[in-house]
């Protein structure tokens, strides 16, 4: 087990940069999710960690061993990094049985046959693949294939496991059960894991911490709760969770509280910067009340099962989002009471 340290990593493929000055650390035994829209550089970051790509700038350490350095042109090839990698396409070798696929890393490490067999059995057992050992990958379902891929990377005790959107090709039900498999795996082995996904529910459900990425940068690295409650940029506030971002003015600080004007009313806001410029209004910050602070018009109503999501436009023009237990008709005017929203410096 080991921690992963990236220092000032940059990567470009010919033209536009795919990653820019990424500095971060994945702690030992941590489950870190890389979350971001498609094309933001998640896979590139993961492939740099694995050694499939070489950084254009910066350096990477696994534990206390430097594995890549753009200045000294040092690059430790993937086969010498002892890292597990789970591919979105599974990348099972179609010409080998499930057992041989799983046991291949041990063949490379020249383990004795009996050692190999015990460890393959243990890995197959841990992924509930016991009965499928002699099948070919083509005879397995999607979920089973992904479990073989996991067993293959688990069998050789890697120092860290990197997973690139491993559940993207599975259906919704299977995804939930595979999330359980990954979490169990993490708890049992305590391996450092970096998990790439574009699905925030998946990241929230599994990760200790989430790194939200956009356009080749890490925008914020925090626990799921902190990301939701205390975003530090407009991008993160809009990308994570539901809600609206509105500008605020006239901030005034008293001893412990802070007040500002937003949506045309004066309101207490939560913040940790002296000059916040934006506030993030989650649905739970807005309560429908005829005597509320502001008024808004209902634009669209979406049934979510048991409750409704309302898209609103405030009297001052900003779009807002809230939820209610009863249906409203589009065009209706409602009053809203606001509870202290999170405010942050615009970026």
């Amino acid at each position, binding site marked *: 087990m080991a921690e992963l340290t990236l220092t000032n990593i940059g990567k470009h493929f010919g033209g536009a940069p795919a990653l820019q000055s990424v500095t971060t650390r994945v702690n030992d035994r941590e489950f870190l999710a890389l979350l971001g829209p498609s094309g933001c550089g998640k896979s590139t970051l993961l492939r740099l960690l694995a050694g*499939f790509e070489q950084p254009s700038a910066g350096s990477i350490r696994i534990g206390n061993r430097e594995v890549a350095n753009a200045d000294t042109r040092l*690059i430790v090839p993937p*086969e010498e990094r002892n890292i*597990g990698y789970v591919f979105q396409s599974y*990348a099972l*070798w179609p010409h080998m049985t499930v057992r041989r696929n799983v046991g*291949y890393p041990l063949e490379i490490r020249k383990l004795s046959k009996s050692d190999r067999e015990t460890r393959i059995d243990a890995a197959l057992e841990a992924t509930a693949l016991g009965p499928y050992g002699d099948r070919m990958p083509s005879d397995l379902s999607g979920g089973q294939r992904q479990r073989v891929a996991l067993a293959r*990377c688990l069998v*050789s005790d890697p120092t860290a496991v990197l997973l690139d959107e491993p559940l993207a090709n599975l259906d919704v039900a299977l995804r939930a059960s595979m999330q359980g498999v990954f979490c169990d795996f993490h708890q049992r082995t305590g391996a450092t894991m970096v998990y790439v996904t574009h699905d925030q529910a998946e990241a929230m459900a599994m990760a200790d911490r989430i790194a939200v990425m956009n356009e080749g940068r890490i925008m914020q690295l925090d626990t799921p709760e902190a990301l939701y409650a205390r975003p530090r940029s407009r991008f993160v506030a809009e990308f994570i969770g539901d809600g609206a971002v509105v500008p605020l003015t006239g901030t005034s600080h008293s001893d412990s509280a802070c007040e500002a004007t937003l949506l045309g009313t004066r309101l207490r806001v939560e913040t940790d910067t002296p000059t916040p410029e934006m506030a993030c209004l989650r649905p739970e910050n807005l309560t429908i009340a005829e005597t509320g602070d502001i008024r808004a018009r209902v634009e669209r109503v979406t049934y979510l099962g048991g409750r409704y999501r309302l898209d609103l436009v405030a009297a001052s023009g900003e779009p807002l989002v809230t939820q209610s237990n009863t249906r409203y008709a589009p065009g209706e005017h409602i009053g809203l009471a606001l509870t202290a929203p999170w405010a942050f410096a615009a970026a």
Partner: protein
Amino acid sequence: MTLASANPSSSRSEGRLLSLILGLAILVTLAPVARLFFEGVTAGGSLNLTFFSEVLSKPATHSALRHSLVTAGLGTVISVLIGSVFAFLVALTDLRRKAALVFCLMIPMMIPPQITALSWTQMMGPSSVLLKTLGLAPPLGAPQPLYSPGGIILLLGIQHTSIIFLTLRAGLRAIPQEVVEAARISGARGFRIWWQVVLPLTLPSLLAGVAITFVTALGNFGIPAMLGIPAGYATLPTLIYQRLAGMGTTVLAEVAVLAILIGIVAITGILIQRFFQRRQRVHLVGSTGRPLAIPLGRARLPVEITLWLVIAGILVLPMMGLLATSLVPAYGVPLRLDTVSLDGWYEALFRQPSTRRAFVNSFGLSIGAAVVLMALCLPLAWLMDRHQTRLSRAFDSLLDLPYALPGVVLAIAMILLLINLPFTDLSLYGTIWIIFLAYLARFFAVMFRPVQSSLRQLDPAMNEAAQSVGAPLWRRLRDIVLPLSAPAAAAGAILVFLTAFNELTVSALLWSSGTETLGVVIFNLDDSGETVMASAVAMTIVFVVMILMAVIQLTSRRLPKGVVPWQS
């Protein structure tokens, strides 16, 4: 060396291995071509372009160039007519027995051109055993109708029909059904769909097929040699052969100039083919739908009968002519029950030591070439795909040259390169090794291209997964790359074997007593008037090729998908 972007992660060992194999491959394929070019522009030692233009301005050169262009051009037209009708019908309709049709259409390509020529002359001339037997022979002294430009054009056309058929069929099968359905929903019907949708989509593959057929026809030696030389009608390859046979090695420089001339035409053809292939890839990218299947309805049976009659005409009849000739005691005697004789077969196969030697030589050469090329091409294609250096890209665009150049030209290049080995007094000329090296150069592309395209389709994650579990380069090559590209490699090896086994044009200039190949033996027997024996040997080769193809076809169900080159 600097490893440019595609896979910067690659370890240094891969770069070193690539340089090594690439160097070897360049030596094998491009060194002879370069040597030939050098000879052509430096006649007599120094750079001398006047000699070059002198040869080019000779009337014989002009007429041979004209003859080459005419025969190859019109021959291609015939190939397109037959091949595209077959391709459209086989690929797009509900014909029955398609596998058998495809198999039969592949045979002309696998039968050496000189045997095709021999079999057709046996079928048609005034001394045709077949016609005599049927009482239809023209009077003695009447000209053999095939000894003419028309005969050359007809046979070139038939010989290369399979090339058009195969490329066009692949293109047609890539058209998804949805494309045609979308056209019908938009209101297009009948002929309009063919004209405005199917044809534009297949045009790139058709044009690519046309270019490669033209180049192959241009380099054909067997047919113009057997039909054109008796008629005094020389094409560039036969002119080269006659120059060389007539005056020995003093005319090497002149011949090199002619070779460059034909090389330029061939390269133009390849470039055109490349251009259209690239356009085709853009066209049909991402189409994964079902292929078209148009029901023929009531027309099916008549169409099937017509197709099989065509196959009978271009394949079965000439073979019968050849068989008939091989079964008479002396050339010109009609074949009847009381004249049937196996003397020709016995004499040719068991009495002539050269035939037995030729069988051993051809088998050894073609198996050897297939094995060596497989060992060379597999790692090379994989490494070249991963590390795109300037050198590897340049090699990629030139490696078809030895195959596209006429065999005679390649043979001369080999002689120039190997007649005096650098730094030694040794010469490979007259040994079997010069033929072997020539085969490696000539059939390199036949092996390399299928392997390359199958490796390109391989998910790069297959290799990366092995890398991430710690497999070093040679283990990945052995455990992942080799097994996954084995079907394509096997297909390439089968093609190399079948074409090398039949080959005449390269060895025609390189053989010497003891190193004859089968192609040479047939040519020599026919040349010295032993037509019956030549027919017997030719028939044997046809049988061997067909049996080999049939065995491959029959085991195809148990072979991995993609091993049988004519099934895709």
